[in-house]
């Protein structure tokens, strides 16, 4: 970037401690001004409330089956109920929390602010996406109370098509419908990023969060429709009694697995890429440094989106797919780890000689780096063709993806929420409880999931309600950790709500951060975001390393 050096003398705006009299939260109060709003910021708040509720529901299911696993015998739940619990935990957490979490909440709120636009490209479609999620959520609640689902979130045939006696068809429809919420959000974001950037905001001046959302949106648009049609086919086949995936009727269950993982592997990148974007923002802000290797982080997001489409077969090493396909998928799995590693190294290099501030978002971000590194590296163990055979379907796999999904995405989501909360609400939450809570979550998380690595390594299979007594110690530790984690996830609800009423006024830029949403917007933002369309003449993150910050 030849013109990227015009950054040295940027006037940092005076800190503005006054909240604006009129902002997006208070300019209208009626219910319809919320439920029919076209404002991306209000839609973000609607998503925030919705997915917080789903997170609690999904957590409740987890609490129930973790209690069952305290003892080796199946004493609290019978096998059928246990199967329903972990299935619903997976379905709710994946489709109703993780996939919408950062894109739909923080993405909706921040995308137009970060690129200097008044709204996303299609505000009505944006609201419609939220309503689709609500319809899907209603269907999910209906299926839960009318028989549940016990196929695992993966809907594998022939269990889903032949044996299960639960609400498989309704569940298939639920996933189908909910998928369109994700597709339309991705479509909206892609068009917004392409067409609505402020004057001067070239691609390589964009915040890295935008790059991450961009890559995520590509996956949402190209991946989700495939799983939609796959699960719909499985559902229709169950009702109709024809075998396309069901071997009893002449079908091929491996075909189902191919079509399912073609989306569902890229979907794990939907669940981690936006988190990586948020972490890039936070690391830069709280180390007062420019992000090291901006272009590498930006392109690694796109690389993950592209290569991520080519590795789905690593879920299927033991399914009977061709051994040669297994070789190729194993090699590609090694390759897709490279861009993730690039990000980790670049974040670490950003910290180097930075002016690190241990504010709450930074604690979460550092936690993210450590936990994601473990989750990612164990993913490589599982991507190795030979090693996967004994580890397949053990708790090692469970621990691995929870390190990525919870240790990665949930930590990143909480980091982002703590980082942008003052922007979203205009209020600052108390730092000390929040910092303590971040540490509690980190400890509770490791206590929950690290024992699962060990149990899995020793061969404890997943998805059973009873297990060999030798594994009890690891399960007791894990359940204890889940309790700590549950406390850690509950406390932020209270101090966030407290801050709304009693929190200090945050001012437009409490962290001294760089970026349009901090420097050109009030907290909370104006209903129309900016009084004047911003003009950008510098690269992202022009931190000099000299600003200081006390929190």
């Amino acid at each position, binding site marked *: 970037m030849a013109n990227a050096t015009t950054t040295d003398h940027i006037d940092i705006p005076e800190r503005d401690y006054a909240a604006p009299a009129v902002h997006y939260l208070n300019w209208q109060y009626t219910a319809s001004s919320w439920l029919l709003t076209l404002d991306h910021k209000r839609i973000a708040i609607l998503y925030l409330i919705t997915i917080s509720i789903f997170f609690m529901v999904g957590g409740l299911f987890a609490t129930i089956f973790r209690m069952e696993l305290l003892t080796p015998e199946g004493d609290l739940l019978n096998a059928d109920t246990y199967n329903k619990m972990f299935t619903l935990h997976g379905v709710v957490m994946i489709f109703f929390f993780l996939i919408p979490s950062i894109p739909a909440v923080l993405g909706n709120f921040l995308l*137009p602010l970060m690129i200097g636009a008044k709204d996303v490209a*299609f505000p009505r479609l944006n609201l419609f996406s939220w309503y689709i999620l609500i319809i899907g959520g209603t269907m999910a609640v209906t299926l839960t109370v009318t028989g549940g689902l016990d196929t695992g979130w993966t809907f594998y045939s022939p269990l889903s098509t032949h044996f299960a006696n639960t609400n498989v068809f309704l569940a298939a429809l639920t996933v189908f419908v909910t998928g369109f919420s994700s597709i339309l959000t991705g479509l909206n974001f892609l*068009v917004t990023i392409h*067409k609505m950037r402020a004057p001067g905001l070239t691609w390589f001046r964009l915040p890295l969060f935008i790059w991450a959302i961009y890559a995520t949106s590509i996956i949402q*648009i*190209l991946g989700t429709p495939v799983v939609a049609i796959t699960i719909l086919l499985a559902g229709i*086949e169950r009702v109709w009694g024809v*075998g396309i995936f069901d071997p009893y009727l002449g079908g091929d269950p491996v075909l189902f697995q191919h079509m399912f993982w073609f989306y569902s592997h890229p979907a794990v990148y939907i669940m981690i890429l936006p988190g990586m974007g948020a972490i890039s923002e936070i690391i830069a802000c709280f180390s007062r440094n420019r992000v090291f290797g901006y272009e590498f982080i930006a392109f690694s997001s796109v690389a993950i989106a592209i290569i991520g489409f080519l590795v789905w077969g690593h879920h299927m090493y033991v399914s009977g797919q061709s051994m040669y396909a297994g070789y190729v998928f194993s090699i590609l799995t090694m390759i897709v780890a490279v861009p993730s590693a690039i990000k980790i190294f670049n974040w670490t290099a950003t910290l180097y000689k930075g002016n690190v501030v241990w504010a709450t978002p930074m604690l979460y971000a550092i936690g993210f780096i450590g936990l994601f590194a473990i989750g990612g590296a164990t993913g490589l163990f599982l991507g190795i063709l030979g090693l996967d055979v004994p580890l397949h379907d053990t708790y090692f796999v469970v621990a691995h993806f929870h390190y990525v999904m919870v240790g990665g995405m949930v930590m990143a989501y909480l980091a982002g929420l703590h980082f942008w909360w003052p922007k979203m609400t205009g209020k600052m939450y108390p730092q000390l409880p929040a910092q303590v809570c971040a540490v509690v979550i980190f400890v509770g998380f490791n206590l929950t999931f690290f024992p699962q690595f060990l149990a899995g390594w020793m061969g404890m299979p997943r998805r059973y309600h009873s297990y060999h007594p030798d594994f009890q110690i690891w399960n007791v530790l894990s359940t204890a950790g889940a309790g700590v984690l549950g406390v850690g996830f509950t406390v932020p609800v209270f101090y966030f709500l407290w801050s709304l009423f009693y929190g200090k006024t945050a001012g437009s830029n409490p962290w001294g951060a760089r970026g349009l949403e901090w420097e050109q917007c009030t907290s909370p933002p104006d209903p129309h975001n900016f009084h004047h369309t911003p003009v950008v003449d510098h690269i992202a993150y022009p931190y000099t390393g000299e600003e200081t910050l006390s929190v």
Partner: protein
Amino acid sequence: MSSAADTHEHNPHLAHHFETIEQQEEAQSMGMWLFLAQEFMFFGGLFCAYAVWRFTYHDAWFEGSSHLSTFWGGLNTIVLLLSSYTMAMGVYYCQIGDTKRLTNRLIMTLGLGIVFVAVKLQFEWFPKFHDGVVPGQWWGPAGHYADMAAFPEQGHLQLFYFLYYVMTGMHAFHMLIGFGILIPLIVMSAMGKFGPQRFMAILNFGLYWHFVDIVWVFLFPMFYLVT
């Protein structure tokens, strides 16, 4: 940088969050193309399933295909291609401002679309239902399809008809969605809402309609012309 608010007064079709009408049109066009990319992947999953079974159960595909009517399928192909032509002309008349011909062409498109769905149901699906060509528990080819009962692998044959119903059904469903959009467009066009200044809705619907046509152009040989 002055606010763009003063230029907003000149074009009532410009939404508040866009700076210029060109920006708005580009965004709408890109949105539609991305939606079609999504549709492409959606049908792609079905085409993938089709390809797997087509190569695995070639005999069943041949047997099933030989009982589909090339006449009605071919006629419907012509009907659908004609509707694409009328739709394309509609876009043209919209852009040159001939709203009367635009309305006219939209009605013709709708009419041809309805003919397509009616032929499909009346001459293709309903007779098959009547003669027991229904995959699953009601399977039992009789009447016009009685000789299919002699085919040794009935399960594979059912798979052919399952994909036939699902894929042509998903295509017909997309046409029904198209009708649902066309009808309001016709009403708005008759009220003179469209013209050279406001044609994105027509253009984007045209893209959708052509996409649905192209899907059929693939479905027709895949099901009717297998040898």
